[in-house]
């Protein structure tokens, strides 16, 4: 586990773009990353930071748009010979039995029949699937399915085991159980695998498993921090160093502008290459969710750790972050040192009734560029209606097709709540909402 060891996989300035060349969208800025023998490396980051893209480039599934991936110093040009992936959705072949699923990769490598069966049965035994050889995946529970996923990945004795959010489709207890079994195999040297690369959005999972944690930022994806977790396993979730590591990652994730302080032990290249001028994203949160967060903060004297909030709500960081970002964008909270602190505007909003909230939200939403733009465009048109394609074109210079759709979706959600605008019944035009004008006494009465 010496940092001076030769890396197994080394990525040099890999970048990824999607879309046609003239309107390409950068998913990942030029990044260096290496996987060393003997380590479990966890890759964390908010959604849209290119975690999965990174995994696919390192494993050779997808070529980088530029830069190079080296495998023992040799350039990679296809799926690497000796790696496996455990998938989030298990990706088992439903028409093959458990045994056939596990044998399939061995068949592809031309292993003779008897040898193949022996190896498959041995590995199934070691993941606790003895007796399920002839079952079909659909007859198994989620946890059992992922055990098959592990067996299929481990049966080829991969040098590097890749895992793409392997536990996120499972319930909490099952995931916990599988994690500790994985660690048992790894720490007991019961698998010949030399390195594990796990993509996750669960911070505690990363700190529980990994020897090294890499956190990505987004727009475009880049390495924010890269540090070692030097605690013996199994790790106690209540240990101060454990909590410190978790809190540190929370701080990095919740403050996109923060430059992380601890010194990474492997030098991680800062995101190179000037990305295009960034268009501020609308965080994908619902107004109801924002209100919920503010109410919770009011109950806690206006300030609480984001980690603590997520824990109490049993939220993954991916689910909570957009709400926090949205509240902060609207000026309802300040995020400081991993803590969220409610502002006077936020407090006013949290304590208002429903109609008053809509009014306050209408004012606050003016701070959001996309909402402001839609509003202005609608106000300036004589017929007060604007094709959705107009905003679509505006956004798709900055976002992928999918993200553009989501941005507009969220904007409409906010616009509806604020009674500012909506889509018409065909969904192809934006139209102003018929707001009850304050001329009447209706608003005053509430």
């Amino acid at each position, binding site marked *: 586990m010496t940092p001076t060891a030769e890396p197994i996989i080394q990525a040099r300035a890999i970048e990824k773009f999607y879309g046609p060349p003239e309107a390409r969208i950068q998913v990942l800025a030029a990044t260096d990353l290496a996987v060393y023998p003997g380590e479990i490396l966890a890759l964390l980051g908010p959604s849209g930071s290119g975690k999965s893209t990174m995994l696919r480039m390192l494993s050779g599934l997808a070529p980088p748009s530029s830069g190079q991936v080296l495998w023992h110093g040799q350039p990679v040009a296809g799926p690497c010979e000796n790696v496996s992936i455990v998938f989030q959705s298990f990706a088992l072949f439903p028409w093959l039995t458990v045994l056939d699923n596990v044998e399939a990769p061995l068949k592809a490598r031309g292993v003779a029949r008897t040898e193949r069966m022996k190896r498959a049965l041995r590995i199934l035994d070691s993941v606790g699937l003895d007796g399920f050889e002839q079952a079909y*995946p659909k007859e198994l529970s989620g946890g059992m399915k992922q055990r098959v996923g592990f067996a299929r990945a481990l049966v080829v004795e991969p040098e590097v085991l890749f895992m793409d959010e392997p536990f996120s489709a499972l319930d909490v207890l099952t995931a916990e159980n599988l994690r500790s079994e994985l660690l048992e195999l790894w720490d007991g040297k019961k698998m010949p695998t030399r390195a594990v690369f796990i993509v996750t959005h669960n911070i505690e999972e990363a700190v529980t498993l990994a020897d090294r944690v890499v956190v990505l930022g987004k727009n475009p994806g880049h390495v924010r921090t890269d540090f070692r977790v030097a605690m013996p396993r199994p790790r106690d979730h209540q240990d101060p160093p454990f909590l410190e590591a978790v809190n540190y990652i929370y701080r990095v994730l919740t403050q996109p502008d923060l430059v992380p302080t601890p010194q990474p032990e492997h030098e991680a290249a800062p995101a190179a290459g000037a990305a295009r001028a960034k268009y501020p994203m609308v965080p994908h949160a619902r107004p109801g969710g924002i209100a919920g967060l503010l109410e919770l903060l009011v109950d806690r004297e206006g300030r609480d750790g984001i980690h603590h909030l997520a824990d109490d709500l049993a939220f993954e960081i991916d689910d909570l972050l957009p709400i926090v970002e949205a509240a902060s964008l609207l000026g309802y909270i300040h995020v400081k040192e991993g803590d969220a602190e409610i502002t006077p505007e936020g407090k006013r909003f949290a304590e208002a009734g429903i109609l008053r909230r809509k009014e306050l939200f209408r004012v606050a939403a003016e701070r959001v560029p996309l909402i402001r733009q839609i509003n202005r465009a609608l106000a300036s048109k004589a017929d007060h209606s604007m094709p959705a394609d107009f905003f679509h074109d505006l956004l798709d210079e900055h976002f992928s097709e999918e993200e553009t759709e989501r941005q507009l979706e969220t904007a409409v959600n906010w616009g509806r709540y604020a009674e500012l605008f909506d889509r018409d019944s065909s969904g192809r035009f934006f139209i102003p909402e018929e707001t009850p004008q304050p001329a009447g006494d209706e608003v005053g009465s509430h």
Partner: protein
Amino acid sequence: MAFPQLGRSLMRERSWSVLVDLLVFAAILAGIYAVLATVKYWMGVVTPAAHISRSPAALPAYAFYSLVRMAVAYVLSLVFAVAYGYIAANNRRVEMVMIAVLDILQSIPVLSFLPSVMLAMVALFPTRQLGVELGSIVLIFTGQVWNMAFSFYSSLKSIPRELREAALINRFSATQRFVELELPFGTIGLVWNSIVSVAGGWFFLMACEMFVLGNHDFRLPGLGSYLQTASSAGDTAGILWGLTAMIAVIVLIDQLVWRPAIAWSDKFKMEQVESAAEVTSPILHLLRNSDVSRWVEKRAVEPLWERLTTSPPRVVSAPAARKKNRGRVVGVVLLLALAVAVPYLLVKAALLLKGLPSAELLATLEAAAASFGRVAASLGIASLWAIPAGVAIGFNPRLSKVAQPLAQIAASVPATALFPVVLLGLVRLGGGLGVGSIILMLLGTQWYILFNVIAGAMAIPTELREAASVFRFTRWQRWRTLILPGIFPYLVTGLVTASGGAWNASIVAEYFHFQGKTMSTLGLGAQISAATDSGNSQLLLVSTIVMAMLVVCVNRLVWRPLYRLAGSRYRLDS
């Protein structure tokens, strides 16, 4: 034996199994004889216009000949569909062209292929019966292959990304990927489309077995020509005999082939949990438990599977270079072939069309309008009765238990076979073919609407229906706010299929040989049929182009927007 009970239960299973084995053996023997007889007949001297007997005693042989034609055409379709879908889905370079071609071919009616196909096949084997037979088989093939190819293509395109990646990262060979991922994933779609396609094959059997081409008379022994001969002679008893034989064959195939196939294909479902409702097939159960099939599986299927899925031993080496060349070569060759063929054919077609008098062109457009009206009318009438009936059946489980099997049998009877009976009635009532052909189209298309509406009504959640009763919706309100939006996506699917069927049916419905005369009415279908009969390739080409254009335009302008609407607004899931 210590456990006599166990012994007895084993015995019973044994005797069951022996019976099945005998049946399977008998079937194999019959199959071998059938192949020999067919080969002898095909290799015999050509008799393009066979004498068609109207005696019921000839029916088993005719049914056999038709069945062989259908089977061969189906196997050809299956192979072609899988190959075409596979190439289109795996070669980005040719994909767009191949799918556009498929879209257009799908809209060309069967009869328009007739002259070229027939002449080519007869030219290939001028002295053997094989030539004529192949012509008929290829005609049936053109009627059923396209939707199967489409289905396989779209199945391949919708394979979940992670499954594809699992195959990629585990370095499956192309064959292993095909038999363990792509083929299984496409199987369910292929099975259902096969059923629809073969039903379409029966529909056009009459047209494909007996036709006039210029001054050549083609008549092949088979159920289709039997029915046509009987109806030409106005022989009601003959028509009924022929119909009975055809329905018997169709029901038999449904039980012996399609039900087992559906039950078997259940294991290829992508669902993650086991579903409660399952199609069962006693035949499949018997087959699975017979010694013969076990022997075949152990000796033939398993070794073959092993050969296909296992790669040659390989040492772990440096990462291989990405292979790109093969696809590119195929693409370039195909493009080159197209680059030569398309302009040549275009020039030929233009030369052919140049001589067409403008009066005929005008007449074609008029005919197109007439057929268009008929298609619309038949869809309208079908919707009028099928929507209320379908909703009633779908909402009432007891009614649906009785009505659904009946409707399925009714739907499996090819409408063309009923034409003579309906025509007899029409002629007695003094109605002309102009209106009569709408009824004939209706016969073929109403079922698609009915079945889809039933499925849609069943998919409306009970809670929504309960909400409607709790809030005391009026009948009109119920239909407008609950039922119509609820069944909308299904209704659109039904209408699309029905409209395709109606256009195809126009060819056989608007032009009919009956009681020694030719009955026809103004219409595009009639024009295509007449042009085929008289060997007027100019007119045939023009009418085919017009029809294909109409169908493609209606698809683009009407059905696709409706599909989109159904997919975005009227969805009950999520």
